[in-house]
């Protein structure tokens, strides 16, 4: 189970990496060949579908199969995985211990006053960070 999960994380990166080396939209069979044929065709399709759900690849229908294109790079995929880990842990953290929390409202006032007093360099930060999972920057 553990090994299988690790494999999936690495495979997602490999499949995305292979897609990004392609000249244009390619089939799952092309990806399978590109990865050296170690993976079963169905495995490649499963991973591509998972990447599609994460919105890092796109597909278009061609005849009876799909053509796949990358829409994000490996760093974006890592960011998504990291965010999922953070969000999952935050939920558990709420049950287990409360001290890993965002700045309490009172602290925010104090902090802004302190930074104000600290002198040059304006502190221009919005209030709440965006909670959505979209918005690829760069």
């Amino acid at each position, binding site marked *: 189970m553990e090994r299988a999960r690790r494999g999936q*994380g690495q495979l997602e*990166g490999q499949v995305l990496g292979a897609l990004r080396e392609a000249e244009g939209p390619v089939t799952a069979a092309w990806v399978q060949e590109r990865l050296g044929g170690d993976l079963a065709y169905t495995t490649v399709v499963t991973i591509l579908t998972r990447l599609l759900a994460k919105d890092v690849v796109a597909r278009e229908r061609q005849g009876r199969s799909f053509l796949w294109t990358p829409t994000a790079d490996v760093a974006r995929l890592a960011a998504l995985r*990291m965010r999922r880990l*953070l969000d999952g*842990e935050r939920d558990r953290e709420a049950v287990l*211990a409360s001290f890993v929390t965002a700045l309490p409202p009172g602290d925010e006032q104090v902090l802004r006053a*302190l930074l104000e007093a600290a*002198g040059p360099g304006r502190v221009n*930060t919005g209030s709440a960070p965006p909670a959505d999972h979209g918005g690829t*920057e760069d």
Partner: protein
Amino acid sequence: MGVFVLLPLVLPLTAWPVARLAEGRLHPRTATRLLTAMAVVMAGCSTLCLALLMVVGTAQLPGNPLPDGWSDPEVRAAVPHDEVAGRAAIPALAAVAVLSGRTLRRHRRVTRLARRALTGLPGREVSVLPDSAPYAYALPDRIVVTTALLRGLTPGERRALFAHERAHLVARHHRHLLAVHLAARANPFLRPLRTAVVYTAERWADEAAARAVGDRRTVARAIGKAALLSRGTPAPTLAALAATGPVPRRVAALLGPAPVTRSWPATFTAAGLAVWGAAAGTLVSAMSSANSAVTLFLILSAATPL
């Protein structure tokens, strides 16, 4: 051994005043090391004494796998309220084992998942992730920062952020943090030490960053901005730049003068009281559990024909 076997269980109560004093008066590096060492020794002694109580108090209960000789009247006479204490020690020990195991597993799992999430990225020490959520933290061997956070900081403040996180890696702060988290599981009276070390480890990294950047205000501003932008961190054992602990206190400390590093503070200052209080409490705790362990060993070897 008498009452000495109970002493290490309650001596961690001294942690509270010592933590308060050390946190405010000692150099963060000294405070982190002192409080971590104190927590580890006290947790070890407290667990050892729980085990001793359990052995003596329960060796004669029916169906017990321990040799009856271990619960010789002479042995039991050495433990105050041996039966009650012995029976109470069983669930206490079990709770310590379960909670420590859970903490350890969570630490490992989060570290493993984070490492796995970052596979395939270039760069060995710093990973910059394209993400709209601003956060930064230090894994045991890697720094992770998002583009959203970097964009909110000036170049000087970014240097401060990297210097802070690098200080966590260089000083292996995750070990200190894991140690105090486990200690707090072993004896709840050690919780003030956990809170204090989480804070002083961050302060230590802040001061290291201030030295590296050469400007305390820049570090203060970096922390302040990051805290205003940031979300929480995955687990308390992963040291974060912001949002683990009272951020305003860290900023205020950086806006004040740099803490002095003295080898040994004078006894009758607050810092001296912290150091010597910690040393005395830890020593008494260690000595009483050693006393109890040796006494029990002697009695047992006399009572059990081996």
